[in-house]
């Protein structure tokens, strides 16, 4: 049960990160680049 839940949590985490654009280097760099690209 715990193992399956951890698997589900891992899937949800990575789907959340990817839907939020946090797995795109351009998006992350754009957020950190205050002076603009």
């Amino acid at each position, binding site marked *: 049960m715990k193992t399956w839940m951890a698997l589900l949590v891992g899937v949800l985490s990575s789907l959340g990160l*990817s839907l939020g654009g946090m797995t795109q280097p351009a998006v992350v760099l754009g957020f950190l680049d205050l002076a603009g690209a």
Partner: protein
Amino acid sequence: MVYMQIIEYMNILVILMHPWLLSAAGGVLIGLSAVLLMGVLGRIAGISGIASGLVAGTGGRGWRIAFIVGLVAGPWLRLWWQGDSGIGAPRVSWPWLALAGLLVGFGTRLGGGCTSGHGVYGIARLSPRSLLATVVFVLTGMVTVLVVRHLPGVGA
């Protein structure tokens, strides 16, 4: 057949979503994952902490492996579902990536957590320590990007 129709409907929904809504949906999924991990396993989901516990043999090997397998499976599921994993290609060569990974690993151990542990799950728990760590690494990231991108003769 119904199953495939649901997948197709969800695909259209994601494509039509405004980028801000998509980001919000991503945030909801991350929050849900944190609550599930804390509620069911009593653990805080910091990706570097979970991975380092696996290497150091801190215990709870099974759930740690399952979490990392799930983490890798997520983009593969999205690739199957949408035809795009959502992972952007690295912008530098492999040696630079390896060096960056080493520095990130060192920094996360030094700071007691990474962007997920402090920045996502720590702030969600209103941890002052995580808030401070997040402010420090975001500001450091901003300065680094400023130097590498905008100072003449430094970066690309």
